[in-house]
């Protein structure tokens, strides 16, 4: 069943999938933006009282004067401790939202055509709790990474402490962080594959899915990591260029333009994550194509009794999904 070159053209195919599912991406962005706006509302309400009628505010509008900024922070009304918890809570809400969205997103990416809105929501709901369980396993899997980092710090601290060179300390510390980041992304790849597999195989037993996907991920680590690496390089290059443009070209007083520019940047990072998801899904599909009988079944628009989900026969207990993809009415395009 395995294809010989599952990575060929995978980035382009993934990008096409992201484009095709632009509505999901847009929703993910809009929710991200709305939550950001909600988190920023108390900040705006507080600082507007101080800034909007003060000429001193010009030092912040026409540049970013740290003296004025810290002067603002020292105003009794401005208490970061009241802003931070709300913003963190909002960020956690977004995590939950993305947990919910991911099931539908992966189901959408693994089909040749877009899912209907109801099918998409159904997939979101179907996989939500499984992905919550996966999240808990992910947190468990990250514990050794944290321990490893602590061990790394312990082992290197003496060398760092006694080195007269900043560079030694800097590069050793950076290397430690890079290794931790790398391990995180490797584990994330594993869990990404687990999620894709859970959707593809309608896997209910999460530990089982994790075990299988572990073998899949690390049995094909080179090709999977190559996908990740190329996307990461694109992300970093674009981010560096964006930062350069922000610092060198955008003028501080162009507040409106800056706001739009920042949102484009935020949207770009979201796109990167979606792109990686799409590429991983394409890779998995090519690596483990569904049985022909199922794979060739039409999805959308399809007959009421169509069975588009390419599941092996052993996963016939797929009641919610079966219901999901056997809607009598023509699905609404997303």
């Amino acid at each position, binding site marked *: 069943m395995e294809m010989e070159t599952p990575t060929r053209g995978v980035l382009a195919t993934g990008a096409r999938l992201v484009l095709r599912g632009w509505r999901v991406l847009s929703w993910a962005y809009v929710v*991200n933006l709305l*939550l*950001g706006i909600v*988190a920023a509302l108390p*900040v*705006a309400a507080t*600082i*507007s009282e*101080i*800034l909007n*009628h*003060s*000429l*001193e*505010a010009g030092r*912040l*509008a026409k*540049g*970013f*004067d*740290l*003296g*004025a900024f*810290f*002067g*603002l922070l*020292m*105003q009794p009304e401005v208490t970061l401790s009241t802003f931070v918890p709300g*913003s963190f809570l909002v*960020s*956690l809400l*977004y*995590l939950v939202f*993305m*947990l919910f*969205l*991911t099931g539908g997103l992966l189901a959408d990416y693994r089909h040749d055509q877009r899912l209907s809105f109801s099918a998409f929501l159904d997939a979101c709901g179907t996989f939500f709790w499984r*992905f919550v369980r996966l*999240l808990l396993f992910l*947190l468990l899997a990250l514990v050794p990474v944290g321990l490893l980092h602590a061990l790394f710090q312990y082992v290197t601290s003496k060398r*760092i*402490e*006694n*080195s*007269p*060179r*900043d560079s030694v*300390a800097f590069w050793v510390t950076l290397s430690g962080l890079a290794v931790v980041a790398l391990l995180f992304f490797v584990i*994330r790849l594993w869990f990404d594959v687990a999620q894709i597999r859970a959707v593809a195989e309608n896997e209910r037993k999460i530990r089982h899915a994790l075990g299988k996907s572990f073998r899949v991920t690390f049995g094909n680590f080179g090709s999977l990591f190559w996908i990740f690496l190329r996307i990461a390089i694109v992300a970093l290059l674009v981010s560096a260029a964006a930062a350069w443009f922000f610092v060198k070209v955008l003028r*501080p*007083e162009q*507040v*409106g333009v*800056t706001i739009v520019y*920042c949102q484009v*940047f*935020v949207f770009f*990072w*979201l796109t990167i*994550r979606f792109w990686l998801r799409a590429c991983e899904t394409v890779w998995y599909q090519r690596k483990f194509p569904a049985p022909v009988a199922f794979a060739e079944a039409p999805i959308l628009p399809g007959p009421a009794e169509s069975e588009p989900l390419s599941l092996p026969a052993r996963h016939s207990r797929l009641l919610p999904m079966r219901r999901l993809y056997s809607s009598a009415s023509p699905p609404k395009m997303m």
Partner: protein
Amino acid sequence: MARRLLCAALCAALLLPAGVAAPPAPRPPQAAPPDAAPRAALSERVVAYQIDARLDAQKKIITATETLTYRNLTGQPQQTFPFHLYLNGFQPESTFYREIRRFGSRGPWEEKNRGGIEVKSLEVAGQGNLTSAIEFIQPDDGNPKDKTVFQVRLPKALAPGASVEFRMAFQSKLPETVARTGYKGDFIFAAQWFPKVGVWWRGAWNCHQFHATTEFFADFGTYDVKLTVPQNYVVGSSGDEVSSVANPDGTKTLTLRGQDIHDFAWTADPNYRVVEDSWKGSAGPVKIRVLMQPDHESQAARYINALKGTLDRFDRWYGPYPYNRITVVDPARGSAAGGMEYPTLFTAGTFFLMPAGLRLPELVVEHEFGHQYWYGMVASNEFEDAWLDEGINSYTEVKIMDSLFGSKTSAINLWGITLGDSDFQRLTYTFAPDTDPMVRSGWQFMTGNAYGGVTYGKTATVLLTLEGLIGEETLRRAVRTYFMRYRFTHPTEEDFLKTVEEISGQNLRWYFDQAVYGTQVLDYSVDRILSDPVDWFAAKLEEKKGVTLYRSHVVVRRLGEFIFPVEVEIKFDNGETIREKWDGQDRWTRFSYEKKAKVVSATVDPGRKIPLDRNLFNNSATREPDPAATRKLTNVWRVLVQILAQALAWLA
């Protein structure tokens, strides 16, 4: 010699027009000698130290003998002499650590941070061995465990004008750096490493215990130091290197001489890279020696450029630098020894990736060099009048950094983010604006932060505000006069304040009483602005720009207790600007106008001459809101939250 006369003439020419009285102990500026040969005294040279020291580089122990010749210039017989043993502060039961704990530090005690000086023997020439007469005293807090000051009573009193010779053998254990003193790996920074006699000042011995926030106070004199260290160590010190002799045991003995200085510090590190340069000032050439850590070698130019710019401005603005050398020490990583001053030597600090727009290396070089003037030569009492050193130095730091890098960008100019040094000083003041007066002794401040905020930030801001009162140039002349008059002496706070009043020709007591001796907070605000049509009652009122007559009011309030005369600028929508003056005596005032124009804005202190005003945001009010800054900062927060949310979503 010709240069000396020229300098003396120049200084006299600068001082005489200002009506400056002759200094109490006139010492014409001396051209720097080309080498370490004895030279004409710049100071009274009360003390002469001869120290022969050997460093055990493995154990970080200095074993030494010290001969101190003390000249009794007190005008009265002296029989009891107090000595500092500063290193004994680095012991867990010392007053130094008591205060650190009191300030909130909760770190565990680590034995490697223990330091101390043990006086093995003390003899006084002609009066015998007085080791057993050593008595530890605690003049400040009575802590019997504190051993940072001892005194010894001589069998025979020392007559006025006579000299006495103390001969000591001592051993100093350096801590892993505490308070920028000690070692880190091979890096050695030996400061306050020898027994040092107190100062007879204002009719009494002044020899305070070592405190968490205080620095030092000592008499001027000469230092002849023989220092034996491993041959591979590069040494920098407060003295000129007279000779260096290699010893058969793999060590070398350096002979070092410092003149007209009041302390002697040295550093040694096999990793130093030496970068040398020179600068020529009105008192002659100055050799610049920079001891860089290997990783920082490429940044030596930043140190040197900042130092030359600083030397140049000090020379032109405040007076000549009379020494023939200055050594910049780039301390070892993690040593926490950066940013400390000693005569003709100071520590700086940088990072190997320090971006050019982050001017910390320049700032620390400027600041620590400035101490050569406000601590090194004008040797005020750092225990009791720390603001005379740190505060005036912070003020001159602002002036020089602004001159070198621009007032808005003198501390940071990086990626569109800016910070002026004056704002930096102001910020440190606003953290603790009203806890302590500037004139408080260092260890009596409420907290360490209060000490820092008031001594550095508030003093600089008080002097910057003083510029607005008497003029920048006048204050510069006053500071110059203060330096020229009191260098190589131990002036008091009143010496400085009276010099400012004298040069400005103004009675500034009302200001000094509040700013220097008081804790009043200065805060003015525009409380409200409004413009109301005079015919507001008319049945069909049509407001037309330039036609409708308005009755406008601007209310300005004094929120703080600090009374200060202010200017208020009122702008109208026909382009007219009015400047009003208010003496600030009452809690508020109202300015009213009848014009065919509405008030657009009102600003207290439009020229920004009162940085002492704690809150600058309430200094102005506009009729129409301008939400640009709010939008910008809200955008920053929003984007940060969005990115945080997306980062967390990587767990999904």
